[in-house]
């Protein structure tokens, strides 16, 4: 169901040294964040994409589709960064007169926006490199190795396990509701969503109680051994 998780398990770089992957990620993203030149950003983006598509063999269509979600955030904030209202239209790349104000695109804000956009894309490609090539249990191993508190790792690990159980249950409940026109209008949608969440919470409580019983029968001593 979660495409990134699936790619992390089936890509060709899965068994590659995790420390090296982490090191490459940290190095590249540091360069991307500190650099102010879009040439550096674009080359990082190209390097990462070549590694992911060429070596790790992530399907190219799926890989570029993954940029759609960050893209909508970037476009939205670009609107805010690029356009502004001004009394004059000197030093502007583009301007439209609106009664006594101008809607302008300033030269320097345009340059700033271009650098920001390329920086965002290069940083996103770096994080895709890490999350698309490293399965979650390898990330947990890295966390253990670098001495993150055990309780936090346990919480993260348990959360990871429960996420997939809950997603499966949501998918089933949602389908059943949708088939009965549960999401046909606003009122029904709210009701169905409320019912879905209620069912989910009840199942969470039940699962919690079941798990306590099963853990106790296994001599649980308040620790999960990893």
């Amino acid at each position, binding site marked *: 169901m979660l495409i990134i998780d699936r790619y992390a398990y089936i890509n060709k770089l899965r068994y590659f040294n995790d420390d090296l992957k982490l090191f490459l990620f940290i190095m590249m993203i540091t360069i991307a964040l500190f650099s102010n030149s879009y040439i550096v950003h674009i080359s990082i983006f190209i390097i990462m994409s070549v590694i992911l598509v060429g070596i790790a063999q992530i399907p190219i269509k799926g890989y570029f589709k993954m940029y759609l979600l960050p893209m909508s955030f970037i476009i939205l904030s670009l609107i805010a*960064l690029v356009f502004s209202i001004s009394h004059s239209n000197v030093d502007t790349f583009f301007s439209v007169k609106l009664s006594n104000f101008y809607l302008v695109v300033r030269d320097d804000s345009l340059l700033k926006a271009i650098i920001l956009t390329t920086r965002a894309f290069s940083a996103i490609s770096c*994080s895709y490199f890490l999350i698309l090539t490293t399965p979650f249990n390898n990330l947990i191993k890295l966390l253990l190795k670098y001495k993150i508190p055990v309780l936090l790792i346990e919480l993260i690990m348990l959360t990871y396990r429960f996420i997939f159980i809950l*997603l499966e249950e949501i998918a089933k409940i949602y389908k059943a509701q949708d088939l009965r026109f549960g999401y046909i209008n606003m009122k029904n949608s709210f009701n169905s969503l409320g019912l879905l969440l209620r069912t989910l919470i009840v199942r969470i409580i039940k699962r919690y109680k079941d798990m306590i019983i099963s853990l106790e029968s296994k001599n649980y001593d308040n620790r999960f051994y990893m």
Partner: protein
Amino acid sequence: MKKKYLVLFGLVLVFMPKYANAMHIMEGYLSPFWAGLWTIVSLPFVILGFRNISKMVKEDGNKKILIALMGAFVFVLSALKLPSITGSSSHPTGVGLGAIVLGPSVMSVIGMIVLIFQALLLAHGGITTLGANTFSMAIVGPFVAFGIYKLSQKAGWKKEFSIFLAAAFGNLITYVVTSFQLAMAHAGANEGFMELLVKFLSIFAITQIPLAIAEGILSVIVYNLIAGYKEEGVLAYEKNI
């Protein structure tokens, strides 16, 4: 000057695409300075929450499982689409109800874990912007929701109304803080902080109002549906609801 901001505000709203998703700050959108600063600001809250969780776990080891279940629950909320008037699809942050049930500091840790998963499994938010996103969604959101809930309970308002207010404002304040963070990070020499703030607020916060109301309504519906279970005393935490 005032009029200028008003024109700006109107324009951004008009040209806003309707699919304004509730979103976290993307990877690479904050410079190293701001990313580091927000991480340092968030750290004490997360450590406080972590201490509270350690105490809870020491008393009862099974609480670990409950907290992880709550984290997974908040995470899967982001897979759900809220019905909303504008036709935009957005997800509830879920931290409002969580803060009322578990307490705001515990919710900070859960929120941070959820943000880690959103960055790692959905590429939603980012690893370097984790600190900033934790501050807006996992710290300010829960604490404001919890504060509003306590205040309106003190004022003697109806429980449903208090929950509605807490969840709606907990959702809204998250995006107000996000706008502040973005405006602070990108304010430049000839574009003042205020001007940017107005633009970011109208993109990320004003469009969020219907969605915040939707989350408020949903939280009340969920509360009402669970309330029937309270009498059975299935879970100690339900007493707080």
